[in-house]
């Protein structure tokens, strides 16, 4: 187990390195630079001076090594868009809306999805089941920006119940949270339904019925416990996945979070911020899957204890 953990950590480090190289090259291969915008034109001499000060006149590999050297010392540089603070300061500020909205979306969405999946599994082939399956399929297939637009259209424009965008008062949170929750609800509904059906059909459940255990206790003590393994392990990666979802959701709802900075940093060629965002998401994804695998092994006696199955 310890060996396994060490191997996985090495692979996390490798992934981190490969992603950093690819992103760095891709980022610089986008035409244009941070001072090429038309809204605030600068003269050629000023531009050259700025580029030299930021080290952007040096060869790419030198720039990369300089940047990564800083990263190893937790120095991610200064964002070009907001030179008054460090990248870390900006990120720690931008995290809050993303964490609140995305986090609430997953935390509220996961139990709803589990309930929906349970209702579907326990009423197989009923109206409830068809509704849940349709809902889950739609939730997974409709892109989150379309869901966001539909939410805005229905609840903000037509019904005029909720504000369409912004950050601040909690009533503005409701629609983005609903947009974030679509994927956890759909994923959990599907996982729960199939895991429970798989379990309910196994003979050990029949034995439990024959022993006189009540249906409720069968479901909560045995079926859900067996079904829980994939549900627990999928949670963390899904949570981190909201960071990618935030690119769309925060743009749609004009929330000043990570996703919004993702978009603006690419538009403004804000290299330090862009790198920091990508590296952070990469690292979090790697760690989330790493922890998910450990949780899976720890929860499942077949892997935890070993054996021939």
């Amino acid at each position, binding site marked *: 187990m310890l060996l396994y953990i060490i191997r996985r950590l090495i692979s996390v480090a490798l992934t981190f390195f490969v992603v950093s190289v690819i992103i760095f090259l891709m980022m610089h291969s986008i035409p244009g630079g941070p001072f090429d915008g038309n809204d605030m034109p600068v003269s050629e001499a000023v531009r050259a001076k700025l580029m030299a000060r930021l080290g952007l006149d040096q060869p790419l590999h030198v720039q990369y090594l300089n940047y990564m050297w800083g990263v190893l010392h937790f120095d991610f540089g200064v964002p070009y868009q907001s030179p008054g603070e460090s990248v870390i300061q900006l990120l720690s500020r931008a995290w809050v809306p993303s964490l609140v909205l995305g986090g609430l979306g997953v935390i509220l969405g996961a139990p709803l999805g589990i309930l929906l999946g349970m209702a579907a599994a326990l009423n197989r082939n009923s109206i409830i089941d068809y509704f849940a399956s349709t809902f889950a399929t739609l939730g997974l297939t409709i892109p989150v920006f379309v869901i966001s637009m539909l939410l805005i259209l229905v609840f903000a424009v037509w019904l005029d119940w909720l504000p369409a965008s912004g950050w601040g008062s909690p009533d503005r949170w409701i629609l983005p949270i609903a947009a974030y929750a679509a994927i956890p609800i759909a994923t959990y509904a599907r996982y729960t339904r199939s895991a429970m059906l798989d379990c309910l059909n196994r*003979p*050990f459940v029949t*034995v439990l019925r024959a*022993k006189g*255990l009540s249906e409720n206790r069968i479901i909560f003590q045995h079926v859900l*416990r067996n079904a829980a393994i994939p549900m627990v392990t999928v949670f963390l990666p899904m949570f981190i996945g909201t960071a990618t979802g935030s690119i769309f959701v925060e743009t749609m709802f004009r929330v000043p979070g990570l996703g919004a900075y993702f978009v603006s940093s690419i538009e403004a060629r804000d290299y330090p911020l862009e790198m920091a965002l990508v590296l952070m998401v990469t690292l979090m994804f790697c760690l989330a899957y790493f922890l998910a695998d450990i949780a899976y092994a720890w929860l499942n*006696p*077949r892997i935890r204890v070993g054996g021939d199955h």
Partner: protein
Amino acid sequence: MTVPALELRNVSKDYLIKAGGGLIPSYRRHAAVAGVSLTIARNSIVGLVGESGSGKTTTGMMALRLVKPTSGRILVNGVDISQLDHKGLKPVRRQMQVVFQDSYSALDPMMTLAQIVAEPLDIHGVGSPREQTDEALSWLERVGLDRSYGGRYPHELSGGQRQRVAIARALILKPTVLIADEPTSALDVSVKAQIINLLQDLQEEMDLSILFISHDLSVVRSLTDRVVVMYRGQVVEEAETEAIFSDARHPYTRALLDAIPAANPRDRRVRRFLSVEEIEAATPRLARSELPEAAEPSQTPQLVSIGPGHRVAAIVTP
């Protein structure tokens, strides 16, 4: 006359099968089990044999009341359980237990063997948790596993060991009736023999009555006192085990017997599977006057007594 441990009286189970699609689906009834009667005397082992789909598993599930019969009565130690609800069934459940063919999926993979075997005690509130675990461990010993197995998980055992665990779990509440649904079909020959011996020993020690559902006639011959043969949802023949093997009267029973592999290659017969029509055509026709007990003449087969404890489905001619 003593009360039998388990008695099924004219039990049937119909399933609705979707026959037509469209907006308004139509259904037709399919009788999985049609009018089956069988009796298991105390301390006896009855084999229920038949091909897949003959309704033998459904019959077993109805005896356990895991499937509600469409009609008919089920009596356990003389008590009619066919109409009881979940609450009313709970005390009856202590009397009846089940062992399945697939020992792996019959055990909850998340629980240790001690927890699995102790769970019936917990469900029925017998003893303190400590006593339950103690009892479970001694049952593991009784079925031939070491006490140290209590902390293990099902996936660490072989198929035969898992079947022992399933038997321990079934018998820990000291039931009077055990339904064994093909408990040896997934095991290889030597392990099969061990499990059969274990069941035989426990049956004698505990005064158990066993309904042994199987398609393996050689196992049935070595274990059971009586055999009931089912074909397409109905009983076609029943008799003392030896009478079935020496004097089978129904064509389907004979076809089953022919299918037993012979050890000596010189004795091997050409095996042939009879079609439904062939079996129908070969159904015995017995004259009313030949029968030891009175029976009404009929066009369709009915179970008639043809000897002591031997009944066969036959057409009675006047």
